[in-house]
């Protein structure tokens, strides 16, 4: 009844009696209350860890999600791998650089062209 209104005599007496009764608790009860209080105050320490856990758990989940995204989608398995140092890659580069060779490579009957070229080499060697 702090600020709202004045206590009348009866209210003041009941208040004084009840408060005095609260102070007259036996030792065992006071001891149990003190232990309960200590236990409650000790609960404040884990709270800080819970704050950190609440912050770190979403961050960890986000990092895991990003890692999985990179593993699954960052590695494009549909695209062919090109090793610039391999003979096939060198052949492809020469083919693209030489316009005539590229046109020949687009012909449908490549075997015939190779046969004709081989025959021409034989004739030139024989003649």
């Amino acid at each position, binding site marked *: 009844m702090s600020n709202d209104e004045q206590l009348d005599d009866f209210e003041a007496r009941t208040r004084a009696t009840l*408060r005095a*009764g609260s102070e007259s608790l036996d030792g065992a009860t006071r001891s149990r209350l003190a232990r309960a209080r200590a236990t409650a105050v000790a609960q404040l320490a884990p709270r800080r860890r819970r704050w950190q856990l609440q912050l770190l758990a979403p961050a960890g989940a986000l990092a895991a999600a990003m890692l999985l995204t990179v593993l699954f989608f960052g590695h494009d398995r549909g695209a062919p791998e090109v090793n610039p140092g391999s003979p096939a890659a060198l052949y492809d580069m020469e083919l693209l650089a030489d316009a005539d060779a590229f046109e020949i490579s687009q012909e449908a009957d490549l075997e015939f062209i190779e046969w004709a070229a081989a025959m021409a080499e034989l004739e030139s060697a024989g003649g």
Partner: protein
Amino acid sequence: MHPLYCEGLGLPAMTDDTGQALNRFLAEVERRAFRMAQMALRHDDDAMDAVQDAMLQLARRYGGRPQEQWRPLFFRILQNRIRDLQRRRTVRNRVMALLPWRQDDEDPPDPVADAPDMGPGPGEQVEGEAMLAALQAAVSRLPARQREAFLLRNMEGLDVAQTAAAMGCSDGSVKTHYFRAVQSLREQLGEYRT
């Protein structure tokens, strides 16, 4: 760095100061809280459980709140816990009443109910422990909401707004419950008015 904020995180932190403040607050209210629970539950162990639970919940859930909020929060938790225990006891008593092998002497002793009922007597002046026992018995007989309003306002000294916050009701309801409680206690303890 502000002492109430974790370094680098900007989050409320439980510092040693907070622990000491909470310890001081609980030490200041714990005995009255126990008496409140005792008058409501009429059982010492249940009263201790209610107070202990209220302390733990305040520390765990609201320890980071501003200290001026602790008092109404603590007593709201306590009142909720008392109601839970009363409901549980009601259910238990109904179940026990249905059991055919129930023994009538299973009820624990009730020190408040067993306190002498100080009816009006001619010129009788009672002080000290007898007055306390009569008052506690009378408060115990009040309806729950009247008892809460009376104890929070009168014994704990909360103002109307704080009492309303602790009881989860409006200011007007607090005033009504408190007025009726005082009227009822005046009638029951008439001889103690002077």
